[in-house]
């Protein structure tokens, strides 16, 4: 992956854009012409070189700009980071997970030296050089989990495991698809999934929860989820809906290819060792319809998935205002050719 970090914005003038390479490695989620929720969980222990699955935590050309966007969100609303008091062990587990993964997988960018509990962390892209004592909160400028999640892309929700359930008791959520950590904090697996249509009836949440309760340290898993976003905006939170809501009605047949973005969430789950908690990372990738249609295979596939989408899912994901416009835009690119199973671009 090309590591020239982009200077770009996810708000106001929206200068975000993808390099050709970033489009090529985009985690296109549709292997078939139809989409329905499923327990699409697979191992997350190293993927193809160059792919977004290669490393436990993917760092790409948008890294610096995404961390900056998170900083802006937190400045305006510190409650996007929520930590219930019994999660301090999990906070340190998070520090270890992120620092170890990044320094192992991107040694030119991040370095970690450990001498017992004396740790030295260097984050070159963000210009951070921090010595601290692992386990001693006072040696970091803020809570450990806030500190480290400001230095990594994607949202992070850390689940406490008790009573055969998972509880969202710690989280950094600044780039979410319309849900609120401040509101959902403390909820159980089924409670925070309450608003999702269809999936509960299909038994998906029962099976997924059972599986996750047995997730093992050293054997992380992942799944993909997706939605659509108008403009390359990361912060589509309910908190700031008044600011991005109007965009939803701004799509026209002329700007649809440029404005409408497919937003794919790479969700990885890691068991944390000291706390027995689970870290859930939600890393969003944005690609405009124009980006995607540089690959005819993706244009055809997306056209079919959107055409066949269950109306409840369309409504829940907030696509109703513009879905037909996207379908109409893609229709001329779909010759009806039969597409083999798979998400590959070509």
């Amino acid at each position, binding site marked *: 992956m090309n590591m020239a970090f982009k200077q770009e914005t996810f708000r106001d003038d929206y200068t975000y854009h993808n390099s050709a390479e970033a489009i090529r490695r985009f985690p296109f989620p549709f292997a078939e012409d139809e989409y329905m929720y499923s327990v699409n969980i697979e191992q997350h222990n190293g993927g193809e070189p160059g792919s977004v699955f290669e490393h436990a935590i993917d760092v790409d050309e948008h890294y610096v700009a995404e961390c900056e966007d998170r900083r802006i969100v937190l400045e305006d609303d510190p409650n996007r980071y929520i930590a219930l008091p*019994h*999660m301090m*062990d999990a906070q340190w587990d998070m520090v270890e997970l992120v620092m170890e993964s990044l320094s192992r997988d991107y040694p030119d960018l991040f370095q970690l030296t450990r001498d017992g509990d004396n740790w030295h962390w260097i984050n070159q892209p963000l210009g951070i050089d921090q010595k601290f004592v692992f386990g001693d909160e006072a040696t970091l400028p803020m809570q450990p989990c806030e500190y480290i999640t400001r230095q990594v892309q994607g949202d992070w929700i850390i689940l*406490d*495991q*008790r*009573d055969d359930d998972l509880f969202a008791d710690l989280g950094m959520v600044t780039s979410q698809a319309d849900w609120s950590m401040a509101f959902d904090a403390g909820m159980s697996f089924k409670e925070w999934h309450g608003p999702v249509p269809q999936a509960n009836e299909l038994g998906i949440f029962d099976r997924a929860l*059972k599986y996750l309760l*047995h997730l*093992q*340290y*050293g*054997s992380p898993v992942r799944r993909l989820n997706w939605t659509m976003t108008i403009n390359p905006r990361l912060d589509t939170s309910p908190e700031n809906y008044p600011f991005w809501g109007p965009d939803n009605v701004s799509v026209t047949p002329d700007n649809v290819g440029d404005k409408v973005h497919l937003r794919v969430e790479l969700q990885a789950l890691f068991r944390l*060792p*000291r*706390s*027995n908690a689970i870290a859930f990372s939600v890393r969003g990738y944005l690609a405009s319809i124009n980006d995607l249609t540089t690959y005819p295979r993706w244009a055809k596939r997306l056209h079919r998935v959107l055409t066949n989408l269950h109306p409840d899912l369309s409504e829940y994901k907030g696509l109703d205002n513009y879905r037909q416009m996207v379908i109409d835009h893609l229709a001329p690119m779909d010759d009806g050719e039969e597409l083999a199973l798979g998400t590959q671009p070509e």
Partner: protein
Amino acid sequence: MSILDVKVADVEQVTEVVKHFTLVQENGEPLPHFSGGSHVVVSMNINGRIHRNPYSLMGSTANTDSYHISVRKQENSRGGSKFMHEQVKPGTRLQITYPVNLFAISKLGHRHILIAGGIGITPFMSQIADLNRLGYDYELHYAYRSPEHGAFREQLEEMCGKRVHFYIDSKGERLDIPALLKQQPLGTHVYTCGPEPMVKALHLHAENLGWPENHVHSEEFTAPPVGDEFTVELAQSGIEVTVPGDMSMLEAMEEAGAEPPFLCRGGACGRCELEVVSCDGLIMHNDHYLSDHEKAEGRSIMPCVSRAKCSKLVVNL
């Protein structure tokens, strides 16, 4: 399932029937961190047959240079504990799984009462390390048969100070569970590990005294019982496996080359659950996972501890 290659660094006879093993990673690296109450599954090669037993990690959660497990020699064992006692020496190589925690301290608890019987003390050793580190309020009540069976007593006195209480059966000392439960403030959780009658008694008393179920925690691993030989058919591959009387169904399937999932191998966690397609006899459920209703329905089996009295059992694997 991730596996660690370890080597036995030290073996210590703790009591007449309990041995303590210190394990280090073969490559010299520290072992993974873990949380109090975790266990690992140890694989042993006994005369060419792979045997896997779960053991609690006892050491401090802060020090992962080595892992510590203790094994009580079981008289009627199918060989695992006997092998650990008789064959395993400093230098022996073993394989273990990554730690798994099925007996964690409830972080919302305001006070924690730990009740151990005999070798059931082991999971508490690492839990106490966590409770001390986190500064939580706790008490340990440890009952054992006779003075020479009080494994780790001194170590516990050192770790717990005034928080530990001992009950020696041969001296007529008894833990009065109802009296203990009756005097606990709101927000207390109770944890037990030990012989089955003790675990059952705790659950019963706690229920009768109005304790909510989710304040009562127990760790109960069953060793796979012996039984009659039967045949299992794996529906997806068509493979037929004979389960000998002295082997668990899970072990027999593994030996036949299948890789069924597992975590605890003691009927507690639910990970190994298999759907029963058909059975021309009776399923002998020995697990703590399925509800009585599910056991009666007979649509699932936990092959780590359960078996069948039949000529053929077909499972969806």
